[in-house]
């Protein structure tokens, strides 16, 4: 199919415009589409796999200082450099050994660096308590923002309860 813009290139962008119940199809080549302000994104057919994506992300980072790249995990023996090239850790300990460069990366991937989900039963009560407190504080902020003061007071009391404090005014 020929591009309806330049009448030269093959049309690779197909637009369907429906207005007043009339459907209009427009077929353009990529450059004409760009000229008309169409953003092209090709999905699925070549979306990067996770390791690819990760490697790209890692490479897009500013170079870590040389000394950091050579940090070695005493437990599994992999270096930060090795992790960067494979996108895979060697053992759970790597998360603390490579902490410095890692947080930057995790923020790029996930947008956040703080776990908010399930906690294993075996993890100490302390963790559970801290998590709950954090969640409650967020709820409290939200309640205050929404001017739901009664709910806010209840949440506050629960926070105090967890912190082992008496209710204050």
């Amino acid at each position, binding site marked *: 199919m020929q591009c309806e813009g330049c009448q030269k290139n093959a049309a690779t962008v197909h637009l*369907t415009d429906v207005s007043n119940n009339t459907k209009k199809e427009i077929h353009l080549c990529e450059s004409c589409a760009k000229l008309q302000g169409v953003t092209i994104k090709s*999905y699925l057919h070549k*979306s990067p*796999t996770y390791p690819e994506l990760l490697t790209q992300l890692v490479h897009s980072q500013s170079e870590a200082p040389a000394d950091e790249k050579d940090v070695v995990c005493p437990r599994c023996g992999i270096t930060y450099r090795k992790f960067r090239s494979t996108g895979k850790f060697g*053992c*759970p300990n790597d998360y603390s050994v490579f902490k410095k460069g890692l947080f930057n990366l995790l923020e790029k991937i*996930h947008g*956040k660096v703080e776990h908010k989900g399930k906690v294993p039963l075996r993890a100490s009560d302390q963790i559970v308590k801290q998590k709950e407190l954090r969640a409650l504080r967020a709820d409290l902020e939200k309640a205050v923002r929404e001017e739901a003061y009664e709910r806010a007071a209840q949440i506050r009391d629960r926070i105090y309860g967890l912190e082992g404090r008496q209710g204050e005014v």
Partner: protein
Amino acid sequence: MESIELQSSGGEWLAGTGPESDIVISSRIRLARNLAEFPFLSKATQKERGQIERRACEALLKAKIAEDMRYHSLPPLSPIDRLFLVERHLISREHALGKGPRGVCLAARETTSIMVNEEDHLRMQGLRSGFQLRTTWEQVDDVDTKLERVLDFAFSPQLGYLTVCPTNVGTGMRASVMLHLPALVMTRQIDKVFQALSKINLAVRGLYGEGTQASGDFYQISNQQTLGKSELEIIETIERVIPKIMEYERTVRENLLEQRREVIEDKVWRAFGMLQTARTINSEETMDLLSAVRMGVNLRIIRDVEIPTVNELFILTQPAHLQKMERSELNSPERDITRATYIRNRLAGRAAGNGSQGDGRGGGKEDRKAK
């Protein structure tokens, strides 16, 4: 050699009975977990892999996940049996093709599967029919809780569950829904959906997950981010977005019926006709035609075929399933003939199973339907 029994009915998720099952095929939740005292599999020796597998199996036995729980070690299984598990979405392709001690534990009518020594030490999956992420999450959460009573998972208070790949750290959870979106594909609206989804950090993949092509107009939508949100928050994000896509697909279907009824009916009936009459057919063409038939059944264009039959055909016509039914290894041209025969028989309302009974003739019922 150990062999996996063929269940003619397929897993629960194929039933086509779950909520919104005209569009949502299945809901899936998987959790990645690692044993704290072992290195990740990227660094584990063969001996350690064996130890991890043994530890996992002991834990599975102790945890009593379900009555019908069964562990299959993969190395003793034939390549066909392994592919069979892939086709049923019970293990990943990588797991089937992997090396060394590894396996899968199946339970609760295949709604629970736990891969041992895949990318992470454990990958627990819940898979259910239709749109029911929450029920699926509760199921996997329960399995995880039972297992963590007997296993010590690698966990950090700051970063959550620690995984081989930093893309899974935190909840270790991937929640996904498989959608059938033929009308959006037909009208080329599907890209718009993908664009919108990528803006809210949801990924779109093909039928068999990461790195696979979309086929049969099936798309899997899943979360990309695993850290910083709770499991339920992640599920809620997907739960909010799916109804919008379903509505979009349904609207386009209705518009098509209103404005281009002949075009859509023609597509559906031609597909149905081909499947009823073909003498040799490959997997890809089967998927495309079944997709049109599935839409036709949902739009009540075709009235005497049930959705579960179509859903089953998607799976049972795949290479390993065909070979298991035939109880022999078949090369590709042989499979295409077997597949065509099986589909003809099935659509003519004959019993499933031992495809050898196919005589190559469709029977009178087909003539009636083909009008």
